[in-house]
């Protein structure tokens, strides 16, 4: 086997699907380099980090890099921007591509100058040798990169990095801070109409009646669009579209379905359809030493994405071609599902990414794209922009699934865990487009020829979904982990930041503290005693040191606690320590996080993601729960779905443990589980009482107190 064929077998990142060099970059005459990534900016700063990687391998200034927004007609297909994989997938691919591009540029420059590549002096794309000079920008043409990426070009050594590993300012922030148009919601195309969708705030099987007589005559209304139970409005003015939507909602009656179960967690346990043992270890000898048995059950409610900017899309149909602008995380998958829903050919559709408000998983972005496309069919070639209203967003974006968890363990007389059992019950954590037979887009289920609503599924281990991080990272001689999959869905669920890891880590790490207490061993010493992984031990140590764990002074009503995980058991290590004060409500005063993501691309970017994740997790953990009435979701505004406010946000300190020699792992989701566990453990420490149901509200704490007395 030759070197090229061999290297093809271990293709890095997204090169497998996108092996041509020309798919990844173009060198422009004006001294800029356009980078084509299939990954998208969702508020996490990924385009800045990818630009750093490209600049590094090309050996040019960061300012020369232009990141091209992902577009199905020009970008490599890199699937979905999710799972904290963008640095691993796109970053690794770009690193290879740019290293090869640099080699090719140098070879050509050498040929131009009539010297050998070894004689060239290169600085920021300017090439000199023997008194002659040229530039990358003069040497490049489209033919140069029309080749396969063979992965033989030498990569720059992390020791020599000048751009990677240094803080880089986010490329998107100047626009956003100046208030310039930047978001998809800010798009304005000539002749654009405004659309709104008329949906009830709960599941429905169809429309019984719609009295549109009053709305029809509304001044400025362009059309009422109806296809089965799908109803939308088009207007010249956005405010008119909103008024029409509101009026039509009152004038419609819907065929309702799926009344909500009263006790969702009991319901999940009763409706599990698949029971999969995902990890099993047996050592009967050690197991027989167990003397202290503990068991505990934990719950996590449905959680909303609750982005500040509701979902939005713009669509235009021109000459049988559909153009869609979307803040989808997966533009190729969205294109596929749009084609299914609209009975169009995929090659007649282009989806281009435009940034939306913060995205924390599978939200309403894809749904809004089909909404806009359906309305565009009635717009006579004019572009149509649809933005969901706040209640549309709370009612229709998929929720992060509720979960129930039961844990059991046995301790030997020395306080070692000799047996560990973890069972979880949950709906699937992904109903993203592109993964089921029919379109996973809300409007498709209500058309006159309706598509079936797909059930959420779980991606397989080792990354997993509901069972993400359910297998403990600790070394237990006996263990059994069971994933009970619930197929039936009272609520639409899909991927929310960290998927099952949030609840699994909350449960595992809460239970570790319960066991440590039973064994009368310090929570951190107890963890270290069961953990061999040196990188895991290092983040725990670092967090403990930074927080001053061993110098804690007991104060009435205050507590501290730790939570730890290696995200997906594959990615970033994160240990969190929380310090809380429990009065009527829980207040988190301080969070200290230590993180190891391997090679750090943009230190400030990683800190921002970890800090943001920790604060969001604090909000989930203290406050958040989708509320239901008999018909469905009842928390449809910020009053009924409160999130953490400025005055409630803890001080957050983040310590990075840099490993330039190790592969870079994503940081976006690593803090979710450890933060929740740290807070829960701190609350237990403060109260002397364990609260096992999230969120840790006054009501949940009061219930735990009354159960214990």
């Amino acid at each position: 086997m030759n070197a090229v064929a061999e290297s093809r077998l271990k293709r890095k990142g997204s090169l497998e699907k996108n092996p041509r060099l020309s798919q990844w970059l173009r060198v422009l005459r004006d001294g800029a380099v356009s980078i084509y990534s299939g990954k998208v900016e969702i508020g996490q700063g990924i385009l800045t980090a990818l630009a750093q990687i490209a600049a590094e391998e090309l050996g040019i200034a960061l300012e020369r890099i232009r990141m091209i927004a992902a577009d199905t007609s020009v970008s490599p297909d890199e699937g979905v921007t999710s799972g904290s994989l963008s640095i691993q997938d796109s970053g690794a691919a770009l690193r290879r591509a740019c290293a090869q591009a640099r080699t090719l540029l140098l070879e050509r420059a050498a040929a131009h100058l009539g010297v050998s590549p070894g004689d060239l002096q290169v600085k920021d794309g300017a090439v000199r040798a023997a008194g002659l000079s040229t530039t990358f920008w003069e040497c490049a043409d489209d033919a140069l990169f029309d080749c396969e990426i063979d992965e033989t070009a030498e990569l720059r050594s992390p020791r020599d990095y000048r751009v990677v590993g240094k803080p880089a300012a986010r490329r998107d922030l100047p626009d956003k801070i100046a208030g310039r148009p930047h978001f998809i919601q800010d798009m304005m195309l000539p002749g654009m109409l405004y659309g709104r969708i008329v949906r009830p705030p709960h599941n429905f099987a169809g429309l019984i009646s719609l009295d549109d007589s009053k709305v029809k005559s509304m001044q400025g209304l362009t059309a009422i669009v109806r296809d089965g139970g799908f109803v939308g409005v088009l207007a010249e003015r956005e405010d008119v579209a909103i008024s029409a939507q509101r009026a039509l909602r009152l004038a419609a009656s819907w065929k309702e379905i799926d009344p909500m179960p009263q006790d969702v967690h009991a319901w999940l346990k009763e409706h599990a359809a698949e029971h999969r043992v995902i990890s099993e270890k047996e050592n009967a000898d050690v197991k027989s030493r167990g003397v202290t048995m503990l068991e505990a059950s934990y719950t996590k409610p449905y959680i909303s994405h609750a982005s500040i900017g509701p979902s939005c899309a713009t669509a235009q149909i021109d000459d049988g071609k559909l153009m869609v602008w979307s803040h989808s995380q997966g533009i190729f998958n969205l294109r596929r599902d749009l084609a299914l829903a609209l009975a169009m050919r995929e090659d007649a559709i282009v989806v281009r990414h435009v940034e939306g408000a913060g995205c924390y998983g599978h939200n309403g972005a894809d749904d809004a794209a089909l909404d806009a496309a359906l309305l565009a069919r009635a717009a006579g070639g004019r572009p149509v922009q649809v933005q969901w209203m706040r209640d549309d967003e709370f009612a229709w974006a998929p929720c992060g699934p509720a979960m129930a968890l039961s844990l059991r363990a046995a301790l030997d007389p020395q306080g070692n865990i000799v047996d560990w059992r973890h069972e979880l019950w949950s709906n699937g954590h992904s109903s993203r487009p592109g993964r089921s037979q029919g379109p996973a887009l809300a409007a498709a289920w209500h058309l006159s020829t309706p598509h079936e609503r797909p059930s959420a599924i779980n991606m397989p281990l080792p990354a997993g979904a509901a069972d993400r991080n359910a297998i403990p990272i600790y070394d237990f001689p006996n263990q059994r982990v069971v994933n009970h999959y619930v197929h039936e869905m009272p609520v639409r669920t899909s991927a929310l930041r960290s998927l099952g890891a949030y609840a699994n880590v909350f449960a595992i790490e809460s239970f570790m503290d319960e066991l440590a207490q039973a064994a009368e061993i310090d929570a951190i010493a107890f963890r270290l005693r069961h953990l061999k992984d040196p990188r895991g031990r290092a983040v725990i140590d670092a967090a403990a040191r930074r927080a001053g764990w061993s110098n804690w002074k007991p104060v009435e009503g205050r507590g501290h606690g730790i939570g730890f995980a290696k995200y997906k058991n594959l990615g970033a290590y994160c240990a969190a320590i929380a310090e809380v004060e429990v009065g009527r409500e829980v207040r988190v005063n301080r969070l200290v996080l230590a993180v190891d993501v391997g090679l750090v691309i943009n230190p400030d970017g990683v800190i921002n993601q970890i800090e943001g994740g920790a604060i969001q997790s604090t909000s989930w953990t203290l406050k958040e729960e989708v509320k239901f009435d008999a018909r469905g979701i009842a928390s449809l505004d910020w009053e009924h779905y409160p999130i953490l406010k400025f005055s409630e946000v803890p001080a957050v300190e983040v310590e990075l443990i840099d490993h330039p020699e190790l592969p870079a792992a994503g940081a976006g989701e690593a803090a979710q589980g450890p933060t929740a566990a740290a807070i829960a453990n701190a609350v237990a420490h403060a109260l002397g009482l364990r609260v096992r149901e999230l969120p840790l509200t006054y009501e949940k704490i009061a219930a735990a107190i009354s159960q214990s007395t």
Partner: protein
Amino acid sequence: MTEPLRLIVNGAETALDVDPHTPLLYALRNDLELKGTRFGCGTGQCGACFVLIDGHPAPACDTPLWSAAGKSITTVEGLGTGGGLHPLQNAFLAEQAAQCGYCTSGVLIAAAALLAKNPRPTEGEVRASLDRNLCRCGSHNRMVRAVLRAAREIAP
């Protein structure tokens, strides 16, 4: 048809021939193409659409045009002077105080109102004054640091 409504937006007087019940938000975003003021909830609960009306932060989504007529309205685009950025905006850049940036405009407006009446706020005062602004990405602490930095720069 009613009389055109007269608005003073970022110091410039403008007349709009639209329904006086139209929320100010859509007049700003779509008629005047000032896209920095953003829709978040439509009920004044999140702060994404805050503008200054005669110096006071108010949700443009919940303010009918008639009630803003004749008053001085400042949007995020009008915070700076002479085409430059407001010190708050420079401080937000220096602190990299955003993730998605969708709530940023409204936070800047609330912070500008705070600094106008209290040039050297404490951290607690900054937090309290931003409590009507929601941020989902968890950029709160960076934004608070940025406001304090701007305060130091405006009134050293």
